[in-house]
């Protein structure tokens, strides 16, 4: 798999339910699949010192993030018998209630799909050079930190 092309994961702005539906629909011809696992990150309207988050603005060190994601993708395909894996992360502004992350894994059986999805989300959050700036309703901001 070493010569596999490095795929883009970044999309501009929020990931829409229609985009997700389209991605799901594309798998109906893949009849070896028995289970799909999806994780979606949604921007929370957190309250910090009386102010509410209105949006998160994402930036990334794109080249490094894509290279790192490529390595994670290969490691996950080595570890689990997956049929498919699709990963999308927003760049730019994503408002509260909108989706900023979409991880989608598919396998013949449920366990590899579920475990791979969960592991991709963990690794992506820990290893990808992506930064979220929480923009408050009054246009001040603070930098998000993953917990």
């Amino acid at each position, binding site marked *: 798999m070493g010569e596999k092309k490095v795929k883009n994961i970044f999309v501009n702005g929020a990931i829409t339910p229609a985009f997700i539906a389209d991605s799901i629909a594309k798998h109906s011809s893949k009849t070896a699949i028995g289970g799909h696992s999806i994780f979606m*990150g949604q921007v929370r309207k957190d309250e910090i010192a009386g102010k509410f988050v209105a949006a998160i603005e*994402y*930036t*990334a*060190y794109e*080249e*490094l*993030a894509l*290279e*790192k994601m490529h390595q994670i993708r290969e490691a996950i395909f080595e570890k689990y018998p997956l049929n498919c894996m699709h990963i999308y*992360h927003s760049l730019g502004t994503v408002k509260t209630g909108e989706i*900023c*992350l979409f991880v989608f894994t598919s396998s013949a059986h449920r366990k590899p799909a579920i475990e791979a999805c969960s592991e991709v*989300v963990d690794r*992506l*959050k*820990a*290893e*990808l*050079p*992506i*930064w*979220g*700036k929480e923009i408050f309703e009054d246009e001040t901001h603070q*930098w*998000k*930190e*993953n917990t």
Partner: protein
Amino acid sequence: MIASSQIKNKNIQMEIEIISFGQIAEFIEHQKIDISGITDTETFKQYIENQFPALKGMKYKLALNKNIVQENTAIKNPATIAIMPPFSGG
């Protein structure tokens, strides 16, 4: 021999492109420096923390030519170094 090699290295003029992200990009701008005496990532850290004292109290990682720096690494001319605060994607 070690001393003379260090002196030799210190005289090498380095072209380093500095890029920064997230909170760190708020006070370190994208810049190119032409400098001598920076031969590895540890000396770069000393240099950049002196230039930008705000960095001293922060957690950050470096990436040298798109490789995340895990331990002190020699810098070869020319180099791109990214200064990255903790990741917060997802």
